[in-house]
């Protein structure tokens, strides 16, 4: 819980408006000095989600699941420390994670996937356009687009029709954006900034597996399910404050 904050610094950040200049605002927030802050997370990811909520930081997380019997609980208190240092310490409390900031979003990345061509987040999409659609709907469309790349459709089985029903709720609203030659990560960042679903998470199973085309398979955020290639890849958008008890 934030007990004392250097108010003038963050007040300035708010006045600049991070929606219009997200990178500046996130950087400013990261450089802010916090007088007293304690995080108490049941897990590594819960601690990250709590910090994102408390500092109002958009965050994209690559999360490698651990064995159920391995505790990653993290509790720590800081005094007169920058937000950046706090996040770096939380991130570094588990081996194999890195932190960087791009597009105005704090990225918690898996070092092992950093330059891996099988990382779906680095997949480049020629064009992606959203016209007054909910983020949840656009996100599912992006997943289907990525799936066609991971699992190229058999040209002998031409699709005749497609349909669906997609619920979107708290934190979501219709948005519009147009991106060209962008990575999945960049698009997720823009979707995350467009509405109030300020966190995206891609979960990887405890043991890595790859699709036939070499992409690292993802899994569901909750249960560690084996997800078929036809449902790959999976990511989740969350509002600040969700799943902080993970």
């Amino acid at each position, binding site marked *: 819980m934030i007990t004392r904050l250097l108010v003038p610094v963050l007040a300035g950040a708010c006045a600049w408006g991070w929606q219009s200049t997200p990178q500046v605002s996130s950087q400013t927030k990261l450089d802010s000095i916090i007088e007293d802050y304690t995080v108490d997370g049941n897990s590594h990811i819960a601690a990250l989600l709590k910090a994102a909520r408390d500092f109002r930081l958009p965050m994209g997380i690559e999360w490698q699941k651990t064995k159920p019997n391995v505790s990653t609980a993290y509790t720590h208190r800081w005094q007169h420390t920058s937000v950046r240092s706090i996040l770096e310490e939380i991130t570094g409390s588990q081996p194999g994670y890195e932190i960087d900031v791009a597009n105005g979003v704090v990225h918690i990345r898996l070092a092992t996937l950093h330059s891996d061509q099988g990382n779906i987040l680095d997949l480049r999409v020629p064009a992606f*356009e959203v*016209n*007054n*659609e*909910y983020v*949840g*709907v656009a996100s*599912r*469309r992006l*997943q*289907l687009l990525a*799936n066609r790349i991971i699992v190229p459709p058999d040209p002998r089985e031409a*699709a*005749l*029709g*497609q*349909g*669906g*029903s*997609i*619920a*979107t*709720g*708290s*934190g*979501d609203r219709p948005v519009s954006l147009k991106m060209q030659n962008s990575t999945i990560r960049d698009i997720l960042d823009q979707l995350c900034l467009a509405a109030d679903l300020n966190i995206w998470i891609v979960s990887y199973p405890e043991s890595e597996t790859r699709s036939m085309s070499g992409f690292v398979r993802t899994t*569901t*955020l*909750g*249960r560690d*399910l084996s*997800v078929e290639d036809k*449902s790959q890849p*999976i990511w*989740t*958008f*969350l*509002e600040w404050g*969700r*799943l902080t008890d993970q």
Partner: protein
Amino acid sequence: MPNLRLLLLTLTTVLGGAGPLLGQCQMLYNVSVYSDGSWSSDLSAVYGWSNTVDNSTLCWCTHYSYQTTAYLYDPYGDQVSSTQAGMESTVSMAINGLMGTYPVRGTVAFYCSCFGAAGGGGPETPVDVPIPTTLTIVSGTSVQSTESSVGCPDGMCGNRRSFLYQVLDQRGQPINASMSVWDQVFNVNGQNGCQLNDLYTTTCPTPDTGPCGVNTSSVGKFSDSLSMCSTHCYSMGACSDDGCSTTATQMWFIAGHAVTTDPKTLVYKCQSITVNGQ
């Protein structure tokens, strides 16, 4: 969502065994245990608590070492309890989609310097966790898109419809909670004239599993976007309608509970999508 019903247990006992002389102080037990409960704002957990108040007339005796226990039962009668030193105790249980009545009960144990161990308990206080019973389309929120804005793949046309659902409980009242929501769709291939056999998308990316991070608003509303694209709605380089129809059945899950009045029947056509005929 506080359950405002409070239950008072009063254990009042005049202990003749104390042998007071006429006009002297008479020991009187007057111990109350209040029990109450509530559920979390996302309908994922139910809480119970018990609070002990000791207004006994003690005379020369003292009461000490209070231990208050709160018991919480699920609708099947399975129990969790928590005993805490002092006058209060709290207990919680995950709902996991099991809505209904969760009784809470409290007990207290303590020592009396005159009479030794003492204690008592009260009857149950019901905590009614609302049951997601009906999804109703909020009047005036249904929007039917034009063909050009649906964004169908080349060689297909179709339509999209979105609206707000409101979650109602067993009494037809809105459930004011931010609850997880996901859906399952069946029988897409049963009556499938529009051949929607490619990637029928549901709320969660993995079919038939949830939750996946989607929650209703704090007043139990969420948007559903229904869409279809088909080669049957396209001809000679333009959108058309050959009269195809695909019927699917849909089951919604709210806070892990299958909506009682589901399934719904979805009918997809080139220029319309209906839910239970609406």
